[in-house]
């Protein structure tokens, strides 16, 4: 570990100022990803700016629009077990608890969850080429070990996936990310927060260099009646999703009034296809219809060898998860807290 400066900041204005004035500066909150990256020699911050004590950023409150405001520094555990989240946004609670381990969720923050890096093996190995870590050096995953990699939205420069569970639920809930920077505040719709690799895989998201996430807004609709999160992974705890599905829906009799389906583990960002959701609107909530929607979601999917199985796995996971959402009590393993 390199020698580094450590400073604590008490408010977001100071945080932005320190980040702007320290060229080698990086924020630390829960530290569950930064310390990893540091130990693997993927980053060497010159100044660590501790934002864990920022005033007013670790709370969870109702907001004036009938939704909920999740503080960027509230921990994943505090969020998942918050009475209002459990009651009105159980999809989010289940998704958070499907991730990581109890210890990590106790330390990791909501803002940090959005900003975590991919767990691509080649990204994590400093001696491998990687366009995300070292732009222009190449992507060994395309022809190499790619069991965990993307089947949608990839580019010829990067086939990494974004690993978060929490963000899959936030995508389905159409959350809004509130950020602050040297030029003031802005609100970024969740679908526009993360990005696809394209020509610039080194960029995971659309947050500007000196911006900080202050909180996340959840809209009023939480799909608390009909929701499900299904996470499929190699082991049932402390593993990233091979495929995960978040479904929230509103029923009108036996018909689907509205539905959201977001996928994790398949792309560089949580994956939604509005056409699949529109297709289901007004239709009966049947296996056949969900299966047709799954086919729309997977229409452009392509495997790279080891991950070919994900295409069929995702189709089946979508159908199963949508059926489980009809009766949330039927949710099985992926919805249990990950130990």
């Amino acid at each position, binding site marked *: *570990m*390199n020698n580094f400066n450590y400073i604590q900041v008490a408010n977001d204005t100071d945080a932005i100022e320190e980040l702007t004035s320290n060229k080698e500066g990086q924020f630390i909150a829960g530290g569950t990803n930064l310390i990893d990256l540091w*130990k693997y*020699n993927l980053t*060497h911050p010159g100044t660590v700016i501790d934002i864990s004590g920022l005033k007013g950023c670790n709370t969870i409150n109702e907001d004036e629009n009938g939704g909920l405001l999740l503080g960027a520094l509230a921990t994943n555990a505090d969020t998942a077990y918050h009475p209002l989240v459990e009651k009105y946004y159980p999809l989010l609670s289940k998704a958070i608890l499907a991730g990581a381990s109890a210890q990590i969720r106790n330390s990791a923050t909501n803002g940090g969850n959005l900003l975590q890096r991919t767990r691509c093996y080649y990204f994590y190995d*400093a*001696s491998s080429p990687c366009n995300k870590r070292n732009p222009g050096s190449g992507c060994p995953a395309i022809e190499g070990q790619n069991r965990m990699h993307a089947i949608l939205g990839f580019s010829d420069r990067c086939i990494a996936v974004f690993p978060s569970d929490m963000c899959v639920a936030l995508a389905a809930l159409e959350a809004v990310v509130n950020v602050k920077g040297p030029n003031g505040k802005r609100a970024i719709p969740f679908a526009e927060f993360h990005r696809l690799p394209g020509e610039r895989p080194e960029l995971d998201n659309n947050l500007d260099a000196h911006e900080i996430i202050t909180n996340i807004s959840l809209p009023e609709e939480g799909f608390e009646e009909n929701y499900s999160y299904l996470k499929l992974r190699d082991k049932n705890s402390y593993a990233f999703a091979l495929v995960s599905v978040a479904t929230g829906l509103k029923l009108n009799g036996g018909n689907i009034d509205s539905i959201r389906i977001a996928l994790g583990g398949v792309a560089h960002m949580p994956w939604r296809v509005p056409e699949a959701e529109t297709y289901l609107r007004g239709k009966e909530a049947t296996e056949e219809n969900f299966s047709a929607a799954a086919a729309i979601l997977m229409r452009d999917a392509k495997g790279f060898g080891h991950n070919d199985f994900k295409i069929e796995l995702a189709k089946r996971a979508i159908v199963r998860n949508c059926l489980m959402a009809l009766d949330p009590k039927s949710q099985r393993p992926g919805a249990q807290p990950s130990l």
Partner: protein
Amino acid sequence: MNTQQQVGKPISRLEGRLKVTGAAKYSGDYDVPNLLYGYIVNSTITKGKILDIDESQARALPGIIAIFSHKNRPSLPWFDIMYMDMDAPPGSPFKPLYDDHIKYNGQPIALLVAESFELARYAASLIKVSYEKESFNTDLEANIKKSRSPRKGMATLIKPLPPSPKGDFEKAYADADAKASGDFVHGTEHHNPLELFATTTIFEGDGKLTVYDKTQGTSNCQVYIANVFGLHYKDVRVLSPFVGGAFGSGLRPQYQLFLCVMASLELKRNVRVTMDRKQMFTFGHRPQTVQTTRFGATSDGILTAIDHTAIAETSQFEDYTEVVVNWANILYPAKNTKLDYKLVPLDVYTPIDMRARRKYRNARY
């Protein structure tokens, strides 16, 4: 004592409380005064030659005590027998920092010694190594045609090679009332015990060393160190009061022992070298195998014919063997057997025994 009454009753291990309370000290835990910390640099290519090791950035850091590589290691014996530990398979044992040749991916190529572990690890990240790469083979299935019989040696005594064929397998199999067959592929498996491989060497002076090593055989390590570094057996004391899991990986001296003792003798200081979790994948492992089986039986269930062939990987420098195919015929003594065990040398480190059953990756019927 009525042994029957003991069955089913819980019993505490002698060291159980010490281990679960954290009071048990492992080889990397000893609080030794004036300790230096080593961190190992591993090759990032699989086969080839080291052209250059640029140490300038690492050496510039305050607190770096020494950097060892093949360029400046002490003069050591070059003949194989001095490096042969008690569990060494037939062949030529791996000699750390011996020369510029890379024999496998993750081979130790340098040791940084610093005032703290964190500094040594950071400095290691600043070492720039340039290589001349050669093409390599690490895929057993792709090289299966290169299989050959294992060389024999001392290890063959405790791990016998398969017995000669008995009867006429092909005829018995053709005539069998019932037949079964299957092919199985096992991937490489690494032991990865909870306790990391680590060595703490106390430089006692007068040619004496006390060594805490993560090992399942202290006398094996004692003899190895004495032979390699030209010390008297009685002057080398190796201790390993607790084993935090090993499953066979601690049967042979691993390279951190060599590097730690070398640094301690060269610097005349107390030194600790601890591998990190990633480095736990850079030495002995259970080999990949491809196994084919055919069984023939009579209609009343008597096995008459057994054919079991296993082809396993080994390194290019030692012939590690496992007892894989001998068992079926010991358990079920059929009259017609064909048991065969062959090796394919690959550009990997020498495999080592692993306790516990295998998981097969593919079954092809």
